[in-house]
């Protein structure tokens, strides 16, 4: 084979990270970048809570408060939660389906770098003094050029646009990976639950993100080129923005929560030492939630005035989602039932997730009732609800997933004691912060307002809420200490460090070699690795003879493509046409280079495989 002659291009140090197309390394990059943005968003949250610690506080100005809530929401959803999910899916999905990499390793790197530079663009606004301040939903006319002068909202529009490209690429990539790259024998109904949820989440990304793209383009045209999409005076419609935003925004909620469902399914099943209860109903429920998730967007707009017919339709559709979600909750409970449960940090987060998420779900059904929503709308009740599902649901899931897969990603187990401290501090802090906010909302405290008056019965609960937020901050610091302490240890995790691993990722070394599987495994059933273990085998049955393994070459192009978009974004924000066009030209030239010069990749020969080239 002539192809073996290609020389191996290998970079070291920083260059290695900038050029990598290895899904495991990209997963780590997502983890670092997402973690960084999580800290920024968390800091913003703490500042918000300090402002609200007492009535008529003047810790920050009203303008700064608007900027804080806008950036907190945008950062946490687009730059923290989603990348942390992408971190886990990059680290785990190819391993779970028995593949050597994702379908498009190059696009995977491109997706990371566009997300990173999009996020960077958004957060640079803090230093330029023009910070987005129209809320994370950026409703017009507030976000229109008339009412938001200056570059603030432009940062929102272009930062999200660039980050959105990365997300869309990731969605397409993981759909194609899961469809085409599964190991022999791994039929769809043998896929691990996490893989299933990522598959459905990717599909939601593919069909929801283009809607946001168009919405952002329209807002950008309105702001930069004086178009009239949302300018009422010229015949535009503010309601149109609400629709477009929420047709994207509601599936986005499920993009966030479905992977958490998948993580919880894996964790609960592993640490109960039981097969996941009702696997096929779980799959069905996931698909159904995704389908219904597209048809409920207007429940964010009950008070817009769509009329009783629309409100009734969306109300019922929303309540319907409780059915598949309930199926999932019961399946987790039945998986736990009679299992020999081990209370590790990962499983504590998994078990803590269930009641917390149920509470978020119940308030969701309350909000789904259109007449009642007129009371809850724009109060802290809504804030409490979505933090219960996003923090209590998604973040608990991400924490569970991080503790669970950390040894697979880094070859080291996180410290369990510190992990349990993190869990209990975070769990208590979370409920302190947000449980009382339900009642603040019912008492009529409006969201997004920078302060409140004394003597309205809001003081005590706001104080409790702030204390809780600080506890969550402490939990995060403990987590960081845990990561630091762990990374100083020698990597010593076994292939299957939890000993009860059920899926393929636990059948290979921790961390896996860069080609993952020396021989692609043969999958003989659901919970493939558990099945082999139960038959007394020490390794998976290979589906192919050993041989040289073909790998894609590293490339710096994704990095420069994203830099190009970043520069172009700046050009658009500050009306510098040459920068905007120059940046796009950089990106297009990189695309051209990618198309013209074929990537032949390289091979890892058998004798090199023995040395164990680790990632």
């Amino acid at each position, binding site marked *: 084979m002539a192809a073996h002659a290609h020389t191996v291009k290998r970079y070291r140090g920083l260059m290695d990270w900038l050029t990598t197309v290895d899904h495991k390394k990209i997963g780590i990059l997502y983890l670092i970048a997402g973690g960084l943005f999580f800290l920024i968003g968390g800091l913003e949250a703490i500042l918000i809570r300090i402002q609200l610690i007492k009535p008529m506080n003047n810790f920050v100005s009203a303008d700064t408060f608007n900027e804080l809530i806008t950036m907190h929401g945008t950062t946490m959803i687009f730059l923290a939660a989603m990348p942390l999910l992408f971190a886990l899916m990059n680290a785990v999905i190819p391993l779970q389906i028995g593949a050597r990499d994702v379908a498009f390793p190059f696009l995977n790197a491109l997706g990371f770098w566009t997300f990173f530079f999009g996020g960077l663009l958004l957060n640079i606004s803090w230093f330029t003094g023009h910070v987005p301040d129209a809320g994370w939903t950026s409703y017009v006319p507030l976000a229109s050029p008339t009412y938001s002068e200056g570059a603030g909202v432009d940062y929102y529009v272009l930062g999200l646009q660039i980050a959105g490209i990365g997300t869309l690429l990731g969605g397409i990539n993981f759909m194609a990976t899961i469809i085409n790259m*599964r190991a*022999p024998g791994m039929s769809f109904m043998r896929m691990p639950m996490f893989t299933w949820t990522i598959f459905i989440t990717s*599909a939601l990304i593919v*069909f929801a993100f283009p*809607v946001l793209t168009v919405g952002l383009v329209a807002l950008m045209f309105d702001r930069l080129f004086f178009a009239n999409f949302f300018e009422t005076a010229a015949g535009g419609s503010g*309601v149109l923005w609400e629709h477009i935003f929420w*047709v994207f925004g509601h599936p986005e909620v499920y993009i966030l929560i479905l992977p958490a469902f998948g993580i919880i399914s894996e964790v609960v099943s592993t640490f109960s030492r039981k097969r996941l209860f009702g696997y096929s109903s779980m799959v069905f429920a996931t698909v159904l939630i995704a389908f219904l998730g597209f048809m409920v967007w*207007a429940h964010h707009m009950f008070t817009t005035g769509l009329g009783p017919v629309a409100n009734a339709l969306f109300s019922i559709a929303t309540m319907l989602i409780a059915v598949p979600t309930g199926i999932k909750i019961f399946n987790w409970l039945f998986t736990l039932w009679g299992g020999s449960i081990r209370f590790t940090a990962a499983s504590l987060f998994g078990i803590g997730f269930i009641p917390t998420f149920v509470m978020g779900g119940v308030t969701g059904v309350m909000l789904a009732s259109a007449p009642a929503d007129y009371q809850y709308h724009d109060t802290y009740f809504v804030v409490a609800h979505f933090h219960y599902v996003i923090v209590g649901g998604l973040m608990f899931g991400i924490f569970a997933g991080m503790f669970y897969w950390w040894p697979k990603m880094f070859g080291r187990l996180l410290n369990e004691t510190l992990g349990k401290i993190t869990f209990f501090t975070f769990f208590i802090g979370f409920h302190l912060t947000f449980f009382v906010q339900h009642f603040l909302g019912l008492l009529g405290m409006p969201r997004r307002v920078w302060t409140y008056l004394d003597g309205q019965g809001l003081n005590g609960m706001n104080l409790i809420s702030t204390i809780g937020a600080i506890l969550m901050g402490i939990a995060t610091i403990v987590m960081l200490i845990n990561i630091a302490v762990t990374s100083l240890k020698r990597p010593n995790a076994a292939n299957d460090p939890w000993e009860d691993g059920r899926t393929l990722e636990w059948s290979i070394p921790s961390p896996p070699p860069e080609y993952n599987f020396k021989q*692609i495994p043969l999958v003989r059933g659901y919970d493939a690795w558990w099945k082999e273990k139960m038959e007394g085998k020490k390794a998976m049955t290979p589906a192919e003879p050993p041989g040289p393994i073909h790998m894609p070459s590293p490339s710096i192009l994704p990095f420069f493509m994203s830099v190009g978009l970043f520069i172009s974004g700046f050009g658009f924000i500050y009306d510098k046409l040459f920068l905007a066009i120059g940046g796009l030209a950089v990106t297009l030239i990189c695309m051209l280079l990618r198309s013209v010069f074929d990537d032949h990749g390289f091979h890892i020969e058998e004798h090199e495989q023995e040395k164990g080239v680790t990632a």
Partner: protein
Amino acid sequence: MSSHHSTSEGGAKRHRTEGPQKHIVAFILSLALTVIAFAAVAAGEINTTFTYIILVAMAIVQVFVQLAFWMHMKDKGHLFPIIGIVSGCFVVFLMVIMALYWVWW
């Protein structure tokens, strides 16, 4: 090394060299559908609702023709492309309903 050779073998074994006839038929069909649509508008004598129905019907039929023949959707191994396009159309359907009924009132 790949696990999914099966998808390609179906086409490769038979080696049927597809003639251009089908595509010319699809082209003429598309042409006819386009002409009908333009003619319906140019005539301008039938009532508006009916014209709308003709226009939408012609467009949808033409898209089916093109998807099936030119984009090979009728061929084997196109399950996921079909799922992808149908899901996309589902979103479009929702957006169109939204635009027509729930923006102005």
